[in-house]
């Protein structure tokens, strides 16, 4: 055989060995990642074709292609697994009906579990939302400003101009009070239904103690809003 051919073959062989080395070390890494993903079970992706109530009936399922299915399983495993079925939704509706009957004034209850709103009630709700968020944003802005105040320096005294009307402020406190009460009711309900995990029970105890203190402060200060 020609010397050049021998040299060429030798060089190619060395390159091939190098390539094999790099490819095998790369493969190992990919495997590790794939392994963790594979260990999770996929309950409803075998014949997953998308959402039954989809508004895109013509959208072709990428799962016709095995690579795309693998990609989806690898990148968004929990999102795919958490697609809920009608039985689950019915159970949730039942839970809401039960909760709404026990706590009809709870602000977390959605409109669909309450009596339908009249046009005036709906308009009032929009106006309350406007008013609440306006005052709320004002306070967030002010506290953010105060937080960046110079260390050790006392904040300025309350300005003479309140910046909000007493009616607005009263409505603001009313909503805040209802919201904290509603939050506590939600947690109590979940506890009654044994819906919290053991680690959350400890957090819930601390949270509720803190919220009750917050509630007390809000109730106290709301009584000081003047009637002007």
């Amino acid at each position, binding site marked *: 055989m020609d010397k050049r051919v021998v040299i060429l073959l030798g060089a190619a062989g060395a*390159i091939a060995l190098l390539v094999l080395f790099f490819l095998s070390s790369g493969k190992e890494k990919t495997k590790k990642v794939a392994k963790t993903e594979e260990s999770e079970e996929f309950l409803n992706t075998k014949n997953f074709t998308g959402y039954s109530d989809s508004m895109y009936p013509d*959208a072709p399922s990428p799962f016709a292609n095995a690579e795309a299915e693998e990609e989806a399983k690898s990148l*968004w495993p929990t999102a795919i697994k958490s697609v809920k079925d009608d039985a689950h939704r019915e159970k949730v509706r039942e839970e809401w009906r039960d909760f709404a009957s026990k706590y009809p004034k709870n*602000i977390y*209850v959605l409109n669909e579990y309450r009596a339908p709103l009249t046009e005036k*009630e709906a308009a009032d709700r929009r106006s309350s939302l406007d008013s609440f968020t306006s005052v709320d*944003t004002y306070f967030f802005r002010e506290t*953010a400003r105060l937080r960046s105040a110079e260390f050790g320096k006392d904040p300025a005294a309350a300005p003479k101009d309140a910046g909000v009307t007493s009616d607005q402020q009263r409505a603001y406190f009313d909503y805040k009070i209802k919201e904290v009460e509603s939050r506590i009711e939600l947690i109590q309900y979940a506890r009654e239904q044994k*819906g919290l995990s053991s680690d959350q029970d400890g957090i819930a105890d601390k949270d509720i103690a803190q919220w009750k203190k917050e509630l007390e402060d809000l109730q106290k200060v709301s009584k000081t809003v003047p009637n002007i």
Partner: protein
Amino acid sequence: MIEIKKIENLYKGNVLKMFKIFLTLFALLVSSISAQTKAELFARPGVIGDSLSQGFFGVNVEKKSQEWAYPVIVSKQAGSSVSYNVLKGPYLNFEDVLKGDCGPICMASSLIGGNASTVQLPTHAGITGADYSNVLKTSGKCEDITATKQVREWYWATWYWYTFRWVTAPDCQSPDKFHQYGLRDSGTQMEVMEKVKPTFLFGSVGANHVLCTALATSTSCLDEPRFKKDIREVMRRMTAIGSIKGGILFTVPNVTAIAYLESYTDPQGRANYSGLKAFYRSTVSNPDEVLDKTEIQTITTFLTMLNNEIKAQAAAMGFALTDAKVMFDDIKENGRPVRSSDGYSPGNARANWPLPNQPGIFGLDGVHPNMYGHAVMSNELIKAINAKYNTNIPQVSEYNAWFNDSLNRNPVDLKKFLTNTILGQVISWLIGIFA
């Protein structure tokens, strides 16, 4: 003569074959060098970040949204992975609530929050609400690890006199739940990176230095000296770690163009009552409730400064850079094509939350991307990384992301829910984190 020619041809054919094999092997070698660069770069990716990196999604952090966040996706695409503490809230997944997938028990559980699983030392330390200042100062235990207070220290001044002196002691106030559950006892984001010693850094935490203006419709939270001081300190300490071979930063999109804000013209023509208002507001009764022209200009100027600094830091660190502002401006202007491999398209995605027959990149808060939006973001980062480091990280199929994104497939028109009493608190919660 014919025999000689045959031998010559055979010889030529063999050489040609050998040459072809050599070329193929050479090509393989080049691609394997690129694979090696990728493997070296992504041997140990590390993440500092904010809600975008942690996977905050209208208005919650949980396992499924953490999985679709850009650092997790890009790392997986690069054949690597990041580890993090998995959250189960706070606060609540508004999409699930409005679609009837989450009832009062599920709501209570996510409202309290907690960890679904934990790791000893996360390599992904991105936390909702954080900016570069938080990266340096906020741990899972203390809101500000540098904060101090004066306390009495009692001691024997003489053998007969017990008294006190004032000494400076750490003032450790509990941080928010995102930091508590996200970082636990592993330190600040910066300290986590110093322990992890990453080879590749996802280093973008700039958005919350300016996003506050959109949510609070005010420019009072802008603080240029603090931003510059803290991003520079973060990058200085990153360099000092010594292990970082590469990384990526991205610019901050125009926060006045997000779906949370919409144009408003005062019916009475007052200039300071016109501009941009929050989407849920039906009226404007106070100039503080809009960003007027002057304020928008102030934000634009600040954003330019901020993005120039980010670009300068990326250049100084030798990092890849994605101009997310340009990308977002393009989506705002032209939309993002969504197309399957066989040509089907549900239409171009817009810079809004999805609406019926109108794909979108945002979640229901109008601030953060949905699952599809994160895939788009990931691809833009992958393109920048590949260009900078000559790697071949494959892009994500955006159609696949759209197809599997529950909010895009079954959109919720939030404006139909504005009379629900829960909404005030959802907005309050959102503003509280980011304003």
